């Protein structure tokens, strides 16, 4: 998967958002607007059992009573929730038996994204559940996984095939009432991924999902549920690309992770939704709730590279419920032009001897605003809790902003909490130094930014690290005049 320098350079020459194409697939789209009937219709279309329909309706009832949060350090025109269509699926007759039956244009889309199924199959150790506009159309490697008892499928399938598991865990980490967007997601989620790793099983491959928004005016509401049973291990990769679009698109996903005793979940994200154009027009609104719960001796690691979206509101969090559990958050957030990001994490220490680490790297360019917001909470019974937080900001130019909002609530005297923060600017002397060695300014910035982000990039699985580095370069193009 290694990109040659030449390929990299070619990529860099493409100034326009490279995934900004639109696939003309005949699709099945609901009328715009949101009410109980739409919620019922989504549930019905997905052939869901009654308990699921009720769960959605309850969430919808809560959502109606809730207000869109305004505390984040972002400014945007609030979406008109009645102007969005809440369901869009590529039209299909039956389930596909083989790739030949898949709409050729859809396959073409995959090819443009560089994730052709053939290629993916060959790619060692990566199973892919591709979600295009809400409905999962292809799943590979499922048989290999099934041998180990691992379940990896779309959440719609899981609701049908493994209702007991879904019913037991869905909404336990992020209750439908948790927040405005989580409630919205619970009411209308269209699809997403489901993963279950049985006791003591180490998942032999990285699991990955590619998300994509494709239908104009379609909100995308993904729901992901990952359950790692006792003593198991899984590494899950989530990568996103979206075509460019003029009107803002709403993306409100929920990801719930459950790490049982002695289990470990590594969840990595590269987020590359359309960020809007240079003037700040268009772009995705990315309002995501991600949270995991760690039982005794369990560990959850969130790693994210956020380069896309016009507005990002996202705090992957860990509830360290079990004794000796560990939560980690490694983040790179890049904002350019008029992008706004308010992202960070929550580490809630409940069990004894719980540990958390937060490494956040914010890179701001253009006229963008980049905020880190994090909460470290140590509950009264969480003796010997430890946290280390490091928040570094890198500024490019004089018109962008970097903000850090660390909240610390320690209610146990034995807690050890460290917080370090730095803000630096890419220096002209650094650029000149690189120039003098024959390195052009664009490449110099890429070098400096990659160096700045290294601690986090190193946490990503290999194939993702390459893509992430490339994304950092692409998203900062033209940011130095």
């Amino acid at each position: 998967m290694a990109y040659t320098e030449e390929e990299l350079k070619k990529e860099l020459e493409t100034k326009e958002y490279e995934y900004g194409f639109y696939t003309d697939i005949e699709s099945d789209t609901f009328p715009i607007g949101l009410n109980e009937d739409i919620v019922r219709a989504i549930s019905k279309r997905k052939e869901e059992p009654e308990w699921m329909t009720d769960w959605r309706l309850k969430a919808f009832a809560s959502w109606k009573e809730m207000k869109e949060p305004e505390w984040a350090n972002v400014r945007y025109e609030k979406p008109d929730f009645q102007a969005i269509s809440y369901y869009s699926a590529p039209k299909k007759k039956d389930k596909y038996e083989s790739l030949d039956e898949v709409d050729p244009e859809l396959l073409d889309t995959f090819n443009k994204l560089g994730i052709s199924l053939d290629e993916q199959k060959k790619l060692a150790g990566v199973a892919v559940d591709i979600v295009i506009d809400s409905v999962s159309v292809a799943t590979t490697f499922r048989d290999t996984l099934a041998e180990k008892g691992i379940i990896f499928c779309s959440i719609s399938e899981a609701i049908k095939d493994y209702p007991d598991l879904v019913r037991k865990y869905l909404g336990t980490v992020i209750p439908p009432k948790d927040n405005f967007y989580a409630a919205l997601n619970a009411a209308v989620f269209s699809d997403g991924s489901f993963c279950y790793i049985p006791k003591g099983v180490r998942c032999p491959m990285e699991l990955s999902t590619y998300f994509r928004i494709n239908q104009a005016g379609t909100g995308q509401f993904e729901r992901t549920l990952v359950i790692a049973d006792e003593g198991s291990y899984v590494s899950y990769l989530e990568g996103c690309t979206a075509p460019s679009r003029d009107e803002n698109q709403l993306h409100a996903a929920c990801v719930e992770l459950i790490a049982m005793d002695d289990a470990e979940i590594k969840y990595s994200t590269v987020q590359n939704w359309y960020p809007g154009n240079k003037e700040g027009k268009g772009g995705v609104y990315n309002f995501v709730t991600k949270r995991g719960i760690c039982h005794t001796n369990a560990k959850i690691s969130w790693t994210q590279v956020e380069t896309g979206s016009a507005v990002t509101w996202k705090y992957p969090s860990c509830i360290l419920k079990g004794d000796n559990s560990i939560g980690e958050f490694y983040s790179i957030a890049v904002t350019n032009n008029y992008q706004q990001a308010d992202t960070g994490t929550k580490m809630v220490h409940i069990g004894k001897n719980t540990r958390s680490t937060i490494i956040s790297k914010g890179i701001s360019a253009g006229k963008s605003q980049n905020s880190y917001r994090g909460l470290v909470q140590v509950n009264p019974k969480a003796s010997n809790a430890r946290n280390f937080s490091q928040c570094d900001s890198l500024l490019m130019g004089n018109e962008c902003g970097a903000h850090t909002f660390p909240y610390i609530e320690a209610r146990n005297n034995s807690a050890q909490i460290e917080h370090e923060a730095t803000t630096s600017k890419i220096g002209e002397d650094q650029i000149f130094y690189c120039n003098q060695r024959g390195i052009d300014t664009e490449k110099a910035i890429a070098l400096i930014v990659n160096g700045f982000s290294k601690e986090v990039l190193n946490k990503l699985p290999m194939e993702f690290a390459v893509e992430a580095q490339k994304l950092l370069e692409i998203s900062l193009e033209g940011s130095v005049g």
Partner: protein
Amino acid sequence: MLTIKDLHASVEEKEILKGINLQVNPGEVHAIMGPNGSGKSTLSTVIAGHEDYEVTKGSISFDGEDLEELDAEHRAHKGIFLSFQYPVEIPGVTVTNFIKTAINALRKAKGLEDMPAKDMLKSIREKAAMLEIDSKFLSRSLNEGFSGGEKKRNEIFQLAMLEPKLAILDETDSGLDIDALKIVADGVNKLKSKDNAVVLITHYQRLLDYIVPDFVHVLYNGRIVKSGTKELAHELEAKGYDWIKQELA
């Protein structure tokens, strides 16, 4: 190779260089000496093409080509190398990664493919050995937490890797202890050939005991006020710069 004619240069409206003339030919070593504030570092920075310095009069040409329109990276591509007096830190970028990027940038400018990893590794090993650089050093972040001596040695390591036509060494001797100075000077001497040239910028005669110059120039108040051979450096060492100042007064 390098021809500087009546060069005047300013930074923030302040004139620092007030009419420099200098001719450097292939195979030559020139030393530019002078008291603090005489314009030595400005001269090296202007040759390298820093944007903040404005050439108000005169010209610099390199291999017959006027450099005025060329920015720093293109001057580097032509074969001009500056060993910085104060090399900058680039956190998270290893010495190896940086030199790899620089080498491939130069190769690209020449229309060449990236250097194969095997060749790169071989070259890095050779040059590191020549300068007695430990391999652990190569995986450290560029100049981050380096001692003054390590920074300078790293500059010369880059010089050795990039093999430029013209090397300008700005106060490379400062911060080096005597052993390190010998190693660095040894390295520079090994790299010298009939096709390349070296300009040494220094306060002190010390470095010139190890890298023997063909010409010595004294820079004072933005002008080269005296030129000679290496004996001039000894004279300066003995008499100090006040001697020049008095002579000019």
